[in-house]
């Protein structure tokens, strides 16, 4: 045992170690690179606000339904009561719930944008997320604009019980109307997109993108490995695995995400399509 206090080489608020290549990354540099490792392109999670900034034309985002908060319909309490949990999450993240919705421009295309926030109770979908996403889809339908949902969620919120489950049907009902109206819906899967979120709106985009190495799966890896009683292969339920099995269109690195979305938005824009094809 050496004498003296062990020297702290990397104060954690300044540096982050990349879990893939082990490189020590200076936090400011990491943020400038949109939370992607500069050495090995490992994608760290990106907050919802930063995600919006990354995707939309500068200053074009107008947020809607900012004051929507969760009730406590079940009187739920586990380690602590649900309202307390909500308050703590609100204080920690500065958001009201796990989704941010608004209207924005992407490459001069008006879109309705909804971004889920994993930092708020694991991005779990309760009544508020369901309501916000449904309203976003309804606004897209009313204004005849494309809809873009960026998912980042562990699934349905247990603290609201079966009501959370019903949000899946609620959002899919609105998306069905969007589909019938011929409006494009883009689903972007980021790390992680699992459970009830993947088993509803996240899986049904006209275009589905995922970020490299994002966890994308229906049931938790622990449940799955318990079911078969053995370890799962490496890369199971990762974006590349899902791409290989044919359930997403592309795996898009974060740096290219905005341009890739813009390409498809332009391609699907009615004026770009010569009207004679639809007459």
């Amino acid at each position, binding site marked *: 045992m050496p004498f003296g206090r062990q020297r702290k080489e990397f104060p954690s608020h300044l540096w982050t170690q990349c879990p893939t290549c082990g490189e020590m990354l200076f936090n400011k540099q990491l943020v400038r690179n949109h939370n992607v490792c500069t050495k090995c392109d490992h994608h760290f999670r990106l907050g919802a606000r930063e995600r919006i900034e990354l995707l939309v034309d500068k200053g074009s985002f107008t947020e809607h*339904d900012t*004051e*929507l*908060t*969760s*009730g*406590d*319909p*079940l009187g*739920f*309490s*586990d*380690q602590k009561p649900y309202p307390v949990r909500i308050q703590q999450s609100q204080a920690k993240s500065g958001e009201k719930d796990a989704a941010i919705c608004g209207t924005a421009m992407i490459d001069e295309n008006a879109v309705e944008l909804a971004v889920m926030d994993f930092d708020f109770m694991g991005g779990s979908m*309760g*009544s*508020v997320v*369901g*309501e916000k996403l*449904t309203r976003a889809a309804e606004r897209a339908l009313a204004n005849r604009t494309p809809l873009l949902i960026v998912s980042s969620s562990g699934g*349905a919120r*247990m603290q*609201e*019980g*079966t*009501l959370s*489950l*019903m*949000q*899946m*049907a*609620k959002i*899919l*009902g*609105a998306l*069905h*109307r969007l*589909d*019938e109206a011929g409006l494009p819906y883009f689903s972007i899967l980021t790390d992680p997109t699992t*459970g*009830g979120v*993947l*088993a*509803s*709106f*996240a*899986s*049904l985009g006209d275009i589905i993108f995922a970020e490299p190495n994002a966890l994308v*799966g*229906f*049931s938790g890896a622990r*449940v*799955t490995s318990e*079911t*078969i009683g053995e370890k*799962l292969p490496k890369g*199971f*339920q990762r974006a590349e695995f899902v791409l290989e*099995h*044919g*359930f997403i269109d592309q795996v898009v690195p974060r740096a290219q995400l905005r341009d890739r979305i813009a390409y498809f938005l332009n391609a699907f824009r009615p004026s770009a399509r010569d009207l004679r094809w639809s007459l």
Partner: protein
Amino acid sequence: MDVVDRLLGKKTTEGNGHLPEDAGLITDAASLTAQRTPWQSVQLARELRRPHSIEVIDGLFEKFQELHGDRGYRDDPAVVGGIAELDGVGPVVVVAQQRGSTTEENIARSFGMPYPEGYRKAIRLYRMAEKFHLPLVTLVDTPGAYPGPEAEERGQAEAIAKSIATMCGLQTPIVAIILGEGGSGGALALAVGDVVLALQNAIYSVISPEGAAAILWRSATEAERAANALKLAASDLLRLGIVDGLIPEPAGGAHTDPQATIGAIKSALIVQLDRLGRIPIADLLAARYERYRHIGVVVEPLPGAVPVAKKEPFWRRIMRPA
């Protein structure tokens, strides 16, 4: 279901405003006396002797003809579907989840946990109902969708999502009945309807009580506590507006008198299909959308009530660089 009644020109709704009290259906949650704890309901819903889908189908309908396969991969024995005739209604499409009454049966049916191909078979049958203008009846009884790696590879999530979305826009009346256990998204994939009914001791939950206990209390032995907290019993579902009515069971549970239970299901089903059959399809779809649109509890202050940020004192404003 007040929207449906409005379309039918009925003035009054009884109970808690969902369904008129007919055919012995329980529609008023307040009238229910707590007979069982949620945990007892969980155990009754999973009771091996409880009448399962095939037995119920044989009792409800005549001349049931099963249709197999998803036309893509294989036939999933956990999902049973086909065409059958109902007294006074005529032919209907029925899709159900089947679990076994014995261990061997359960292994053959993978404990009622459908694979993606099971949901794709269901979607195929929904489309058939739409094409031939037959009403759709679904029976829900599953612990959840199969969580294994092969199900993941074949797109379990996509299959469930598509099944829910298909039901949301299906142009034919749908009655969904929760017979026993309604396990999460795997159950919802068959349970979107114009009318959703549940047996009195059925449960319907976002996660199994064991799963919730393992995550929230970090111990599977807290399942009873989780069952209480999740409000998954049929009476709670009625109170929350997730189901529209409860079908009464014999005092000891459905397995003590399957004939009586099936009789109660049958009379409720005939009344509901008769009611839905008189509604124009566009109105029915609008009502179905509204039914789900209003589920959920959110708190939203009125536009005027939004707290305005306190104005900064003038000296701070003039001190701030422009």
